């Protein structure tokens, strides 16, 4: 009896496995790796979800970055206890779209978290990100206590030699960085590299030890995001990064994505510069990162695709 049951379940399991594998195989054969990869995509004029879909398609689909069975982290900016219209945090619809896409690519788990500045539960709630991410099938991780962070050394860092990084980043297979484009009083701009401040525990150290250099140093981390997606649907052009009123926000309807964190920050900065003057030399972490050979600020040397909707 027992043996029969075992055989039955083994057989069923085998069939289930075969069925599950099948769509994955099709997916893999469809991947656009051969097509000559796009390095950076800029999209304009749509809603966050449409822009994401157009952008990721032109990057070669999410399966270029997320493989079947991957544990994925999607790291938005959830720093502030602000509603989405204040543009202090990443757009929740965008986060949800990315989460869904990762799951459809066969990710076993998608984790969303941020080490917030304001009280974490208020941030998770009022940003709308917790609800959106959960509805899309992600697990929302906690990041409000030091115990969720682990020491990692950054041998290439000039000022930041080590940092305590969130366990979900350490444990994942790939992670996707999803910052929101904002003006910033101290760092001048906060885009992809600055978004790393939400994966570390001790931010105060950065502020006390040459903020711009520390931002660049953290991007020397060996486990970089496979993709950076900059949300510029709503852009906080003044009083950032927290903002006072919706007067600080313009609806710019744009989105940038790239595998090159320096390039995507450069592109987003140039876009921002059209609303408010901002020199790249003043946002010095971008050039410092280029110096550390993390990426390039010269957008002519990479394959850029521009999409207007």
């Amino acid at each position: 009896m027992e043996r029969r049951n075992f055989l039955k379940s083994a057989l069923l399991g085998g069939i289930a496995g075969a069925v599950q594998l099948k769509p994955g195989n099709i997916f893999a054969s469809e991947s656009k790796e051969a097509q000559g990869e796009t390095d950076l995509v800029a999209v304009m004029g749509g809603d966050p979800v449409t822009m994401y879909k157009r952008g990721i398609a032109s990057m070669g689909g999410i399966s270029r970055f997320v493989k079947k069975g991957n544990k994925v982290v999607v790291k938005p900016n959830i720093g502030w206890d602000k509603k989405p219209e204040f543009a202090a945090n990443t757009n929740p619809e965008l986060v949800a779209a990315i989460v869904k896409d990762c799951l459809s690519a066969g990710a076993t788990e998608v984790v969303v978290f941020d080490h917030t500045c304001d009280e974490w539960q208020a941030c998770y709630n009022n940003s709308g990100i917790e609800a959106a991410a959960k509805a899309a099938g992600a697990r929302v991780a906690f990041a409000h206590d030091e115990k969720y962070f682990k020491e990692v050394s950054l041998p290439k860092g000039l000022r930041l030699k080590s940092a305590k990084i969130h366990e979900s980043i350490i444990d994942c297979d790939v992670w996707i960085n999803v910052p929101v484009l904002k003006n910033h009083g101290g760092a001048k701009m906060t885009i992809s590299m600055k978004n790393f401040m939400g994966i570390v525990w001790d931010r105060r150290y950065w502020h006390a030890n040459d903020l711009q250099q520390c931002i660049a140093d953290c991007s020397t981390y060996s486990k970089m995001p496979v993709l950076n997606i900059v949300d510029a649907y709503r852009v906080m052009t003044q009083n950032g990064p927290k903002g006072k009123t919706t007067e600080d926000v313009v609806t710019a309807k744009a989105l940038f994505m790239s595998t090159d964190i320096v390039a995507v920050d450069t592109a987003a900065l140039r876009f921002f510069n059209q609303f408010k003057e901002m020199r790249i030399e003043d946002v010095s972490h971008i050039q410092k990162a280029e110096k550390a050979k993390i990426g390039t600020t010269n957008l002519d040397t990479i394959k850029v695709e521009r999409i207007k909707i």
Partner: protein
Amino acid sequence: MYKWFKRGRVLVSLAVAILITLAFLFFSNRDNFFFSSFLKVQFVPALLGVFTGSVIILASLFILVLLFGRIYCSTLCPLGTLQDTIWRVASLFRSKRSRRFKFSTPKKILRYSILAISAIPLLFGSSFVISLLDPYSNYGKISSEIISRSEQFLHNILSSIFPDSIFFRTYSQFIAISFFFALGFLILVTIMSVFRGRLYCNTICPVGTTLGFISKFAAFRPVINKESCNKCQLCISNCKSECIDLEKGEIDVSRCVACFNCMTVCKRDAVSYKFMWGKRDVDNVFPAKGRREALVTMGLLGSFIAARAISRKNPSAPLNTSDGIAPPGALSIANLKSNCTACQACVSACPNGIIKPATGEYGINGLLMPVLSFEKHFCGYDCNVCSQVCPNGALIPLTLEEKKLTQIGQVRFYEDKCIVVTDNTACGACDEHCPTKAITMIPYGDKGLTIPIVDRDICIGCGGCEYVCPATEKAMLIEPTSVHMVAKKPIVEKQEKVVVDDFGF
């Protein structure tokens, strides 16, 4: 019949004690004010909050006591319920004989002097003494310091078992004096109740003494029928107030908490809860005397409230020095010190965990009252929880709009300590956290750096800048405003609409 009275009393008292405890626990006091609304139905909070919306509650409590005597003490008072519970648990471990109560003579001088020393300072704008003795507030301290901490400990054990679904609760600041006061008080009450039932209520408790005066003229009072009584002492041995004097056949109603124990146990129905208004017993002089005392007490309480009303308008001498920042809604440190009984409802409700019991920030007469500390976090801009949970009116309820303009302190910037000056590198952590933009960044030097500049009129003292400042010696410090002010509204900076339809690269 009395059996059902007693069961009802036990049920109500447990329900109230549980509701009040839940107002102090993390898992039940987030995102709702349901449990904390029950805190207002407490005598001292209602008395102190009489000018801030508790008038109906206070009147209802008076009517309750006027009708049924100190039934308040055995239903609504959580400390009373705690003492009964302790006695009950302790009696499980004792022989029947040692479980018996005896009659004790009233400790009038002690009771009255304690009442006087706790009430008189209230007239002069200090709620300090009452804050150490008030049964509700001390129950609050026990809930916050002991029960809530145990809850947190359990929560964190669960969080290590289910790390993905239950979060770790960062341990809040431990204020030794507050913890040990609560622990000491709990031990005192435990010892008193284990050996003598409601001894605390009938010797120390100022609320018990006050309500005792009024209950002498209560409509319903426990009475012994001397004809049916055979002096079997069963009632005495069950009277946790130790107030039945069978020699005289009298019950001291000023100490009786209307627990119905005597009526339940009497085999001859000799003790009954009788309607006493308009009835005159010829050989009992108690009613007339009781009425006089009750009236005098009510009169005194009336003048007490009137006196406080006057001193409210003219707050006693302004404080020159104060190191403490009072929570929003406190109006002023003087107002806090004259209305707060340190129950810690705000301390346990603060989502940011920045309210702590004062150690010396307000001086000795402000001990254990709530003070803000920006060491671990700062005051949330979109949060008014503390002002909503305070039952006393020590923190008046603020709308979010009012809270966002309530200036509890003002920032002072020490430029020489700022990272931008000392290290010549970018920082701006303070500006980042400033919700009103009282801190903004202006160009500094020729390296494209920016340095903070402050506008103290817009600052509300939330402490975001002080908390986050990375300098070894903080460059941003909040100075308390001993009288809270209304900050200027943050400046709304309209932007020119720029039409952008290019990527810019």
